[in-house]
């Protein structure tokens, strides 16, 4: 292999230079065809000569690129290790049917138990694991999209040394040399990894450090809760991680904490929150949110107050003062009216032990510390918030770079981290890493970091390898592979074993060994359930906060008027890890409805003052660093705050994610990770047409979204404006079932989990930024976002809109070929192969839920992507109309199952993809003819209403109105 990097290869390397993704492969094929190349290969690497003489397929196969390997051998073959299906599998299914396996996925800093659906050994869809506390059955966009990463054609498929194809053996050989050189001390030997969630990896880390005492293991996450931990450190003297019990909290004050849709445990929190939002069942909680930039949590708040992120701490101080706490610093008013502070304090006071104060991870430590004091003062600690003690933090990237520049690092292994892209700009990672003799990158993609490293090693996808994980709440679960590695990849555990000189051991053995405490039955049970029974239930300790933070309370830097720059993780791409996922890139961001790119969120007031419109280019200057990107005028943004989202501007993400948006890391520095004062905003010339899916944000007098106050609701106000108008025609619907859906706007947090779940389930294509701009997006269920009230402090509501399955469907009437008709269960079905594409149905759909294949959007060429497709759903071609089918394939499965056992389909037996994904159970689906069904009950609700009822389309999809639980004392000042 080493012969592959002598100069004789230069000409061919030159020909490959700058070739990426698809074109890259083609270029390789050309090379393979090139006679001179062949004889060169023959001369330099006899072993490889037959490779080059192979035909395209053979060549690609050896590169592990084509599905000839990935699909046919990979898909067909279950992993050699015995893996165990999910506990609740219906027995005796034919092989053709889907089988579910329970496993664990680590996404965006949290380990979530999931159920993965496989068809003939191909993982095709991810669902939440109801038994796993971090999921409680729900998933959300990122988990839904994880399946696409598995099949991503841009995944790294083979080891590489200096860019040339290498082998694991060659790497093992190198490692051998290094190990012998490091003998025992191991000074200069370093590992950089992402945060470690796997107990096995934890153990391997300890073993590795024992083997090499002089070595160091660094951890780097671009997005973490280190400030929260520092806050705990201040308050308790040692790091604790907070765990909130939203289902127990009557009054919640969130200070920039995006509990519901950001941060690791958000799925669990969202469910806990939703349980307290149904006024007809149990008392409703009250949520106060004070934040600088709008968040999903903010949109769900009963009171949302926009205050510059820099002054959130002051608000907390004022609240604490109002609560009667002593020894607090005196500050200039935060800008929040006295009435509000007072009401808030009264509310918290009145619900001692049932209230909760939460501070967002982006806030500085001292705010967190004060929050701990307040929660203790209010006696919430141990009730609505519990503290989980954690180990001290490992050395970070900063130390590593320092040592590297000091020449103390000789060999570095980078495990599933991408510091070259996502490290703070002032660390200048590439420069410092350049000083390291041997650098090894191990990851799913050949990303930015991989390209500056000597070695790149391809990682197995989590769905391809054995592992285990511990979630934020402490619950532990095993991860089992769903499919043998598609390419020549290793799991992190196997890699660590290799580093420790153990080349033989395979993933399963390593993980099993970690859990040898479990006997085989317990082990099998754990695999089936997808979560381990809690070993020893240790009482969560109740640390007592010290209040010296109050004495060392930092005075706010900067004047009130100066601009503040906020960094936020992208709701979908997180820190950029998932940038090459087309589903996530194209999924409209919950609050902006933006796809394929980021923007600087600017408050309407500021935009007006500076004469800026959405799409205008601006340059953000902070501490001598500058970044130019388009403006997005964001209602509800604090006037002085400007928000940019991380995760964009990747340069080597792959054919999907590269060169999308602008990288906000360019402005980020170690001392200002989340907030930087003294921002300069300069208008740059130029305008960008941002690819947003919704142009009209206001209800414009239409009653598409209805909302009410809790008091009005209790007074008996009904939401349905008018009874269904009479019809000339008698009902024709004859079947045993009448499928219907209700969507609870009081629960929907707008996370878009349903949209991506639908995309995964129904083979919905990705169309790309330009087509989105041209109004050709294909999502079957969209989540509309409306604002009411003033742009500075708007009320925001989310409204998922799937097909309404109207009983008097206007689309059916106008189709000349009967391509959309009604079935006996009242479904409005679309017959793809009958559709000629007149598009009259879409014109005549008052809800505009139909999507048209204006061009050939479904990717029929990329082999690996075919592995993900749901075999139960047609892949639509150009020229046909498509739309939500209520997941008819799932209904039919249930039908068949029920018929087999000759019984009726039970309530809850059919779960649509959107319903399954929803973290807050906002979507109910079932049989309207069954008086006992959940969906029928929701239809009885006082909050129930029909969208555009006046058109007499008689939709089967209906809504439950939004309810806000305002503080009675805050009338106009809400």
């Amino acid at each position, binding site marked *: 292999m080493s012969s592959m990097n002598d100069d004789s290869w230069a000409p061919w390397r030159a020909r490959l230079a700058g070739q990426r993704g698809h074109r890259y492969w083609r270029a390789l094929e050309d090379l393979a065809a090139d006679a001179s190349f062949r004889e060169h290969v023959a001369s330099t690497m006899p072993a490889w000569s037959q490779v080059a003489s192979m035909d395209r397929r053979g060549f690609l196969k050896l590169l592990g690129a084509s599905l000839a390997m990935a699909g046919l051998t990979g898909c067909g073959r279950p992993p050699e290790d015995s893996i165990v299906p999910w506990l609740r599998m219906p027995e005796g299914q034919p092989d053709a049917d889907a089988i579910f396996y329970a496993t664990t996925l680590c996404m965006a800093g949290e380990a979530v138990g999931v159920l993965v659906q496989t068809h003939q050994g191909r993982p095709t869809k991810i669902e939440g694991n109801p038994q796993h506390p971090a999921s409680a059955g729900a998933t959300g966009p990122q988990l839904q999209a994880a399946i696409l990463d598995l099949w991503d054609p841009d995944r790294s498929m083979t080891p590489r040394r200096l860019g040339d194809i290498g082998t694991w053996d060659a790497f093992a050989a190198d490692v051998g040399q290094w190990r012998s050189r490091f003998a025992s001390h191991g000074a200069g030997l370093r590992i950089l990894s992402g945060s470690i969630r796997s107990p096995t990896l934890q153990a391997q880390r300890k073993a590795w450090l024992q083997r090499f005492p002089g070595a160091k293991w660094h951890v780097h996450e671009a997005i973490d809760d280190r400030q929260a931990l520092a806050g705990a450190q201040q308050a308790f003297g040692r790091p604790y991680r907070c765990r909130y019990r939203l289902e127990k909290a009557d009054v919640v004050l969130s200070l920039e904490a995006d509990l519901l849709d950001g941060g690791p445990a958000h799925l669990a929190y969202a469910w806990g929150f939703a349980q307290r939002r149904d006024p007809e069942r149990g008392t409703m909680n009250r949520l106060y949110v004070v934040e600088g930039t709008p968040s999903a949590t903010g949109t769900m708040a009963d009171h949302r107050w926009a205050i510059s992120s820099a002054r959130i701490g002051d608000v907390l101080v004022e609240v604490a003062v109002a609560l009667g706490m002593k020894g607090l610093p005196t500050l200039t008013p935060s800008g929040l009216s006295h009435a509000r502070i007072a009401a808030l304090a009264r509310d918290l006071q009145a619900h001692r032990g049932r209230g909760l104060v939460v501070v967002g991870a982006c806030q500085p430590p001292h705010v967190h510390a004060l929050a701990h004091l307040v929660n203790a003062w209010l006696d919430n600690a141990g009730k609505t918030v519990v503290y989980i003690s954690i180990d001290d933090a490992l050395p970070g990237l900063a130390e590593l770079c320092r040592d590297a520049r000091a020449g103390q690092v000789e060999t570095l292994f980078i495990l599933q981290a991408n510091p070259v892209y996502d490290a703070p700009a002032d660390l200048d990672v590439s420069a410092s890493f350049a000083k390291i003799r041997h650098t090894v990158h191990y990851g799913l993609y050949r990303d930015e970091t991989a390209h500056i490293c000597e070695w790149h090693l391809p990682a197995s996808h989590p769905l391809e390898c054995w592992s285990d994980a511990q979630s934020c709440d402490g619950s532990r679960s095993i991860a089992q592979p769903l499919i043998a590695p598609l390419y020549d990849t290793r799991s992190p555990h196997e890699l660590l074993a290799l580093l420790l000189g153990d080349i033989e051991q395979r993933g399963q053995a390593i993980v099993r060994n970690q859990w040898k405490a479990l006997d085989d039955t317990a082990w099998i049970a754990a695999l089936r359930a997808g979560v381990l029974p809690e070993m020893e239930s240790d009482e969560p300790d109740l640390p007592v906060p010290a209040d010296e933070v109050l004495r060392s309370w930092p005075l706010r830097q900067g004047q009130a008027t100066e601009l503040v720059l906020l960094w936020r993780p992208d709701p979908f791409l997180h820190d950029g890890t998932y940038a090459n996922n087309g589903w996530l890139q194209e999924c409209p961001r919950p609050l902006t409805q933006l796809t394929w790119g980021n923007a600087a969120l600017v408050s309407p007031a500021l935009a007006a003052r500076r004469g800026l419109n959405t799409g205008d280019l601006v340059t953000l200057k902070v501490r001598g660093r500058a970044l130019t990107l388009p403006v997005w005028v964001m209602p509800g943004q604090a006037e002085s705050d400007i928000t940019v989202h991380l995760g964009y501007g990747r340069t080597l993400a792959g054919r999907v994610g590269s060169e999308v948006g602008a990288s906000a890391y360019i402005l980020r520095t170690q001392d200002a990770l989340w907030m930087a004062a003294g921002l300069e905003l300069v208008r740059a010339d130029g305008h960008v047409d941002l690819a947003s899916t*919704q*142009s*009209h*944000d*206001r*209800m*414009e*007098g*239409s009653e*598409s979204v209805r909302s009410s106050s809790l008091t009005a609701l209790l007074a008996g106000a009904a939401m349905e404006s008018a009874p269904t108008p009479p019809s000339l025609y008698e009902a024709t619907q004859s079947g045993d079932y009448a499928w219907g859906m209700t969507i609870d706007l009081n629960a929907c947090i707008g996370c878009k989990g349903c949209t991506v779940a639908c995309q995964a389930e129904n083979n919905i294509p990705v169309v790309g930024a330009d*087509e989105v701009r*041209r*109004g*050709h997006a294909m999502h079957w269920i*969209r989540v*509309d*976002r*409306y604002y009411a009230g003033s742009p500075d402090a708007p009320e925001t509501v989310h*409204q998922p*809109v799937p097909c309404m399955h109207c009983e008097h469907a*206007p689309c*059916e*009437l*106008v*189709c*000349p*070929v*009967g391509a959309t*008709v009604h079935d006996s269960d009242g479904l409005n079905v679309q017959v793809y192969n*009958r*559709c*000629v*594409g*007149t*598009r*009259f149905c*879409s*014109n*005549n759909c*008052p*809800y*505009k839920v*139909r*999507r*048209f*294949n*204006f*061009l*050939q959007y479904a990717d029929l060429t990329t082999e690996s992507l075919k592995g993900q497709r749901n075999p139960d759903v047609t892949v639509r071609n*150009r*020229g*046909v*109309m498509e739309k939500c089918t209520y997941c008819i394939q799932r209904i039919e499965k249930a039908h068949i199952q029920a018929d087999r056992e000759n019984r009726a389909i039970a309530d809850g037996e059919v779960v649509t993809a959107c319903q399954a994904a929803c973290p807050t159970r906002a979507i109910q689906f079932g049989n309207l003819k069954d008086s006992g069904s959940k969906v029928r009950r929701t239809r009885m609700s006082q909050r129930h209403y029909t*969208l*555009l009822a006046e*058109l007499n389309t008689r939709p089967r999809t209906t809504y439950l109105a939004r309810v806000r639980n305002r503080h009675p004392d805050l009338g106009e000042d809400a």
Partner: protein
Amino acid sequence: MTGFALALLFTGLFVAGIVHLLSTGIGIWGNNIPVAWAFDIANYVWWIAIGMAGTFISAALHLARQPWRAPLNRYAETMTVFAVSISGLFPIFHLGRPWFFYWLAPYPNRMDLWPQWRSSLLWDFFAIVAYLIVSLLYWYVGLLPDMATLRDRASRRWQQVFYGLLAMGWRGEVRHWQRHETLSLLLAGLAVPLVFSVHSMVALDFSEGLLPGWHSALFPPFFVAGALFSGFAMVLVLIIPLRRWYRLDAYIRLIHLDHLAKMMLAAGLVIDYSYAMELFDDWYGQDPYAIAGAMAKFHGPYAWVYWITMACNVVAIQPLWFERVRNTPWALWAVGILVLLGMWFERFLLIVNSLFHDFLPSSAGLFYPTLWDLVFLFGSIGLFFLLLMTFVRVLPLLSMVELRKLAHRLTRRSA
């Protein structure tokens, strides 16, 4: 000659556009969701409307025994045939899968499937087919005796064969003439209700929908009037240069232009009335969506289209009240052009203004035409002129038989 070359060029563009469309999909146009129809259907309605005047002149005026129409009808019918043929292309090419357009026809097939009879698109499909075939027959039946004349006059062999075949051995027996007369009278009798129904169907393509601005009982008469309006405009726009180039002033005299202008004015006034009624309905119905749509006409993103339409279809025709204008060819020609422009924009507005913002604010979205949209519009115009010019070269622009009859009648009257 240059005109011919130009027409040929645009036809070439049209063909290129069709090839690109078939190979790529209608995504090459600006159509989107919510505006799933735009130029494609606007062009269709515009062309088929132009056809109306031809049938009206040759059939309705024939029934009404208006002898003065004699010099006009051949050319008017021809215009109809070409316009209708071209308009028929658009419903086919606007489909997502044009190669399956025949699925609208009821024919025995393996899947045992039938069309969906309740759709106005289906009604329209039958209407277009019937209209096209009937106007072709009517045109040819009228052409038959002239073919005989050309055959007998022909000096070159190929002409004799060519016209001979087309004439089908017509020899002017009195008995034949009687049948011929009866038939053309009956065909005229059929063509009139047909053409009215056709344009009503076109109207139903929209008013069967529930969209604000489409769902209106006013549409069928509105569309019929609109069709006459643009039809007469096209007749004028074409005949004025033709009578100049081919020195037909003797046959097509100012009186004809005057009549045509009067009828264009009349149709125009009906249209203007319809505009007023549309607004009145919106106001009287008090449907918030309809009112929003009406407001959008005045100052929505497509308001400029509305105002152009008003300028062309309301203001520009008013001079026709004056005889001096009606007897000034170039003025009539200018008005005709404006009307044609106005009618195209009217159709465009009618489609897009209702679609871009219907019921839910969230689904609002604008339409931006692409280059290919323009190619299809101007390409079809090119094709139309190409056909017309070829026709003028090989077939009699005026109906000789009709003129003979007219002359005979006049001599007898003078005698």
